[in-house]
């Protein structure tokens, strides 16, 4: 029993040293540990559902997270070409361990499909407990200046 426990902690420390990757249940507790640089601009999503803008103060912390997280995930998906880098590393890793055949036969499971806009409207409707007919999401860039956030640019991202 004690060797299992010692083994667990050895693996935990090993994954901690690996920094950029984890293998659940071996996770990092390094949140907010990177040395932040002054951000040039900060991206904030402005969400307008049926003409009404959603504001964080009207939501609980977790609920607002649930509004925001899919947007950030969708942007990341878009920017990474549906996580192409991760898939490539996985393919290379499996090839290195002699499992390229397994990878080839299962790789179709790795790809995302679907219409984000349609899904997000339905999802937001479930959170708001009313259907959302019109949705507009803008990417807004802010900068901290003189004790407050100053809008420096806006770009429409979703509209429909």
């Amino acid at each position, binding site marked *: 029993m004690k060797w299992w426990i010692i083994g667990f902690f050895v693996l935990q420390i090993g994954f901690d040293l690996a920094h950029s990757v984890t293998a659940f249940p071996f996770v990092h507790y390094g949140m907010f540990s990177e040395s932040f640089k002054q951000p040039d601009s*900060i991206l904030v999503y402005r969400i307008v559902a049926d003409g009404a803008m959603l504001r964080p103060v009207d939501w609980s912390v977790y609920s607002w997270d649930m509004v925001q997280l899919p947007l950030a995930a969708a942007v990341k998906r878009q920017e990474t070409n549906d996580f192409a880098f991760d898939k490539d590393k996985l393919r290379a890793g499996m090839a290195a361990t002699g499992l390229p055949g397994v990878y080839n036969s299962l790789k179709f499971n790795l790809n995302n*499909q679907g219409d984000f806009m349609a899904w997000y409207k339905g999802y937001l409707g479930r959170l708001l407990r009313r259907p959302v007919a019109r949705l507009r999401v803008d990417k807004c860039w*802010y900068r901290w200046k003189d004790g407050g956030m100053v809008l420096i640019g806006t770009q429409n991202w979703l509209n429909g």
Partner: protein
Amino acid sequence: MDRLGGGRYARDRQFLTIVYFLFFFVVFGYQWADGRWLYQVRPEFMSYNRDLSELGVILVGLPRWMIAHPWSFGLADAMLFLFPVGWLAMGRRPLLRRLLGVGFVLYLGLYLLLADIFWQIHHEPFILYLLLPLALITTRAERFHRLLDACRYYFLYVFVSAAIWKIARGAVFNGQEMSRILIVHHDDLLTACNGWTCSMYSWLIEHPAVAQLLYILGVVVEAVFVVGFFTRRYDRVLMGLAVLFVVADHLVMRIPYWTLLLGGVTLWIDGRPRERIMVVYETTHHENLPALLDLCALRFTRVVVFLKEVSFANITGSGSPASRWPNTEFVVQDADEPNRRLITRLFRFLRRERCSHLHLSTLDNNWLLFTLGLVFSPSLQVSLTVHEINDYFARRWRSLRDWTESVAKPLLHRRIKHYSFFLPAMAEYFQQQMPGATAVFLPSRFYAGPADPKGDARRFTVVLPGSIDQQRREYGSVVAVFRQWPADAPPVTLVLLGDSSGRDGQLLVLQLRSIRTPTFRLKHYEGYIDQPEYERQIRAADVLWSPLRIHKTGSRETAEVYGQTTASGLTADLLLSNTPALAPAELELPEIFQPAHLPYHHAGEAAALLQRLAGDGMHRRELRTRIDMAFEYFTPANFIAAFEALMALSQESEEGRADAIEADDHSVQ
């Protein structure tokens, strides 16, 4: 004996089960309110979070299959709750329970992976939700505590590694770190700043030095957990720091990290065996300690008594306490030391020395303080001598003290399950009020042996022991008996063996002094009577007289009944010699005390009994012989079993045997 029944292991296991599932159902149940259950999210996209286990799950195609079959999300949520419910329901089927336990852990792990893939749950606070059930799956005490220890180390690791990350990556040394984190973390809130929290964040961003100080304080708090790797002494402090950290995290970062606090249970449950040390607390009735200390000396190699200076000086009528109980340490309360400070010292000592047993010989004040102390010492074996049973169950709400006591009592009823009483009838009555408790009869002291034979020529002596208090004793009959003491009866001396300087005492002395019978003499005391003198008077008495009011009002104005719900000092006084005692017929004394009890219904009957005793030396001697024979029962050997039950020592040895059998079984396998 059931492997899961009784003892520290069972208690710890039950506590972990309650805390774990309370957290589990609240945490995962509450996710519904935020729309976080998979059936609520009904996701159509997967995210890659740089986790190898997640990549594996994605590769085998489960997330993709679930997206194609949305009903599976509801099933996944339902299974998350059905697994633990099924596990809990299989209380007495070990194999099935173990299988369900393992299934639950594996499934919870899978669910967390899916939640991260579909809506980016943060795994960090949930790892202990996977590790702690491992301790509940095992049925071996030693393995249970080892796994719990491992979880404790993991909980410490969570904080310490967070501190190391922040130091190693240089964030601590970046003077702008916290203000920049605040800008990025609260970006959406800051764009439409409204309310005091947003103003606070803005202020902190504008004052980076203050913000960074908060950050550094956070790192220091995290780093302090390293202490836990070397000692368990500060576990409760660390738990307090964990709560403080989570509260601060919620306020400053708006991260409701309280799910992490489940790990606090590993700091709370201390699985290490305690040192076999008996601690006794007694600040009021030191006269009741001798038998307890005699029994403690038989079963404990180390006994420590916390008591008042006056109690220490009077605990024994002859010789010093140190010579009578050589292995017992006495921690004496200074004359100017408040009780609360002594209680604080007591609990500090219990924690520092890891004492196994605490007996509260009297508990009549500071109930809430004791309750808090006991709640924070869950593995301490506690027993209590109850002096007034009705008061122990009574609740009052008239003053602050009433409130604190009424809040404390139900908690004490839950915490303390072992009680002792000075009368068997009290133990029986108590058991009816609290059926699950262990209630035993232990005398105040063991029989000291017969008094020296007295010549018939000396004056007949009647001793009224105890404080002079009209509420508890009825003195009218006493005055009446001696007022009518016949001139031709043997001369008599009445000794008031209690402080008579109070109002009731002065009044009684005045009435007795007015008796003009030439054969009557009065002796009385003012102030505290020291124990040697007290015991000398008892042993010199021809008869004791305890004119009790059977139905009395207790110390907190609760109705009590002598002999049933409360005991007088008479039973302790009787065991100092083989002297008979006059007491109201209504007083129910146990059979073993009956030979010493001279019951009377009224003053006339009391007078007749006294006059016969005074005039008939043969009768007195016969009576003393009978009492001497009966009281020989009061030896430690006849009460050691009751003492062991009070201290749960028999249970401990049974548990030890069960563990040994279990170990044997294991080695055979």
